[in-house]
């Protein structure tokens, strides 16, 4: 084995190395945070769809994103139910409302789902089992993962939404993340009481279940032919992808996190560049000596690159561990679905190596200037 000069160079001055690694660690941590937020926001974007039970969705031609969708004619939903291969077609209403905390009187945002009590709207059978209870006027189910700001509420008790007192008849677990502080599910008729009859006249979406054994794509094609041009038919996977894409690349929140990640990346690359650059400047004579001894330029570049990699790895792993902890803290504080997964760990690892590549590319040019003729 050759003497690992790059490693010895890296650890020669522990204080300086620690400072350097600290800087890299910090920027990698920032990337992890931003990536975490972005991932959570993405997950959050399609969260509402993920709990609903449907194969195809009827949306307005002017659909932008779930909370800002144009409404569709309820007739389209009725039309859809007579298309062959459609097992169930139901209308869904959604709107942002206000929840009043019963003990403090403070208001929080509340996402209201207006569902057809006849249909199986949710994936969770336990929730579906409770939907008939909503048939009674001014009843609601409340999201268990609503923020603590909702104050105390209980099944059998009362809830105040849009200044209407509702009876809580059940609960479910969703968590609205960035969309709202919490959510409730009500019937179409209760929805009309909360937002006015006009709001309930048209649906936001039509949820379609296809008959067992039917290919959703084929049924979607039939629906497209059967229904007027004012609606668009989309599969569940498509609408979820579309929602995530919209959230990540169009909504300011998604862009913010991406820019934040980019900035953290650049900061990391700059820090690493400065470390490598000063390390190389300090060792110009040593590099020139290596050249005089008969070491190739490639070997010397190898030293610089190795040092870059050592610095990045020394920065990456501590921040990986720290991120785990910070994600946990964040989840418990905000209920925001920030989870570390292998993909993110690898993604940030790749970014860290990317920082190293950029820093190395910028700083290694100096090695060429190490001139052994200057040694004498």
């Amino acid at each position, binding site marked *: *084995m*050759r*003497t690992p*000069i790059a490693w*010895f*160079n890296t*650890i*020669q001055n522990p204080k300086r190395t620690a400072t350097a690694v600290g800087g890299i660690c910090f920027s990698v941590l920032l990337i992890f945070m931003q990536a975490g937020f972005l991932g959570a926001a993405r997950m959050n974007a399609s969260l509402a769809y993920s709990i609903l039970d449907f194969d195809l969705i009827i949306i307005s031609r002017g659909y932008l994103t779930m909370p800002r969708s144009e409404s569709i004619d309820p007739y389209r939903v009725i039309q859809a139910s007579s298309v062959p291969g459609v097992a169930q077609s139901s209308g869904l209403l959604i709107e942002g409302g206000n929840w009043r905390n019963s003990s403090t009187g403070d208001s929080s945002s509340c996402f209201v789902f207006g569902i057809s009590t006849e249909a199986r709207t949710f994936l969770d059978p336990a929730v579906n089992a409770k939907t008939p209870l909503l048939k009674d006027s001014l009843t609601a189910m409340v999201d268990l993962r609503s923020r603590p700001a909702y104050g105390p509420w209980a099944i059998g008790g009362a809830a105040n939404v849009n200044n209407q007192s509702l009876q809580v008849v059940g609960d479910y677990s969703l968590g609205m993340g960035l969309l709202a502080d919490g959510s409730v599910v009500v019937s179409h008729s209760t929805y009309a009481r909360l937002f006015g009859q006009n709001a309930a006249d048209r649906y936001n979406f039509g949820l379609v279940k296809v008959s067992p054994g039917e290919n959703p794509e084929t049924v979607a094609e039939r629906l497209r032919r059967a229904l007027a041009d004012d609606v668009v038919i989309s599969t569940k996977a498509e609408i979820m992808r579309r929602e995530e894409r919209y959230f990540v690349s169009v909504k300011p929140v998604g862009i913010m996190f991406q820019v934040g990640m980019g900035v953290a990346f650049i900061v990391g690359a700059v820090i690493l560049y400065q470390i490598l650059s000063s390390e190389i400047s300090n*060792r110009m*004579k*040593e590099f*020139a*000596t*290596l*050249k*005089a*001894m*008969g*070491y*190739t*330029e490639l070997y010397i570049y190898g030293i610089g690159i190795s040092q870059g990699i050592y610095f990045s790895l020394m920065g990456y792993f501590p921040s990986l561990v720290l991120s785990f902890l910070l994600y946990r803290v964040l989840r418990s504080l905000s209920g925001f679905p920030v989870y570390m997964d292998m993909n993110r760990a690898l993604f940030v690892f790749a970014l860290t190596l990317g920082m190293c590549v950029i820093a190395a590319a910028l700083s290694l040019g100096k090695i060429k200037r190490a*001139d*052994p*003729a200057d*040694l*004498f």
Partner: protein
Amino acid sequence: MPSPTTPFAVEINDLNHHFGRGESRKQVLYQNRLAIKPGEIVIMTGPSGSGKTTLLTLIGALRAIQEGGIKLWGTELAGLSPVEQVKMRRNIGFIFQAHNLFDALTARQNIKMAIELTDVPAAERDALADATLAALGLAERVNYKPRNLSGGQRQRVAIGRALVNRPRLILADEPTAALDKDSGANVVALLRKLADENGTTVMIVTHDNRILSVADRLVNMIDGNIVSNIRVKENAVICAILKQCTVFKDMSPSDLTDIAQKMEQEDFTPGTDIIRQGEIGDKFYVIAKGRAQIITASTTDVSRPVTLIKEGAFFGEVALLRDQPRNATVRAQESVTTYTLSKENFLAAVRAHKSFEEQLATQLFHRG
């Protein structure tokens, strides 16, 4: 890579070098010429700025050659690609005035950095590094980093790094400047040993008078010119022989040194002709060792009796002085070593040294 056909380790031919460009272009080396054999230790002296160091970097393939040429073991450096240059440097051990050790590495690891360029098996590298350090009196310091070593110790580690691969050429800039008398002598002895046993050529730039005695050759540079190039030991030998030679016996030591400096050694095997009658004469010969016969073939084809000449004898001057063909053949009877002076140098010496001219005249008169 190195060609075995040349007797020289280093051959410098009409080397010119400039620094700077355009208006500020300044010549630092002028028509340098030097030929050094394997095993020779050359000490280069001269005031700072005289071009010694530049010459050293050019020989070490650390700097691109502009004009003229440098051959190392027969390979011209000027034509080498950067990769070949790097390979060539592996034959060379550099000792810098500043030690230039690797700060992050221990003394042993510093030496190993050099060993790792060779094919010494990994298992033997530590032992070789330690032995090298021990030879330099640093056995106790193998695990010290440069920052924990004294200046002299650092310099010795650097010397160890340059010597450990037993390079064919060592280029050193003030190698003993940081060393005390004993360490300096020790280093010089190591260099001498390497030169004698390994045929390593050593070039040292130094102002350290204590080590001059190790030199086989002293080269003095002034303002980019090699002003003197004295083979110290050989010169002494030649002078001693010349002293016995009647034609030189009245010359002052400095005049003798002057002539000896310009003489080249030539060896002849028994039976070979050193000069042949009728050929154009271009050299003057002094026999340093062995016996030779003078054979004159007259026009009547009757050879005159053979005359034997031995060490201290000289011949070849008549053809040079009178611009005539050789008037006799001289044939080596045994192994003969001669020192020769080219016609140009011979005539210059005759003009420059009155006593030489007089002696020659007397001798010629006697010889008839």
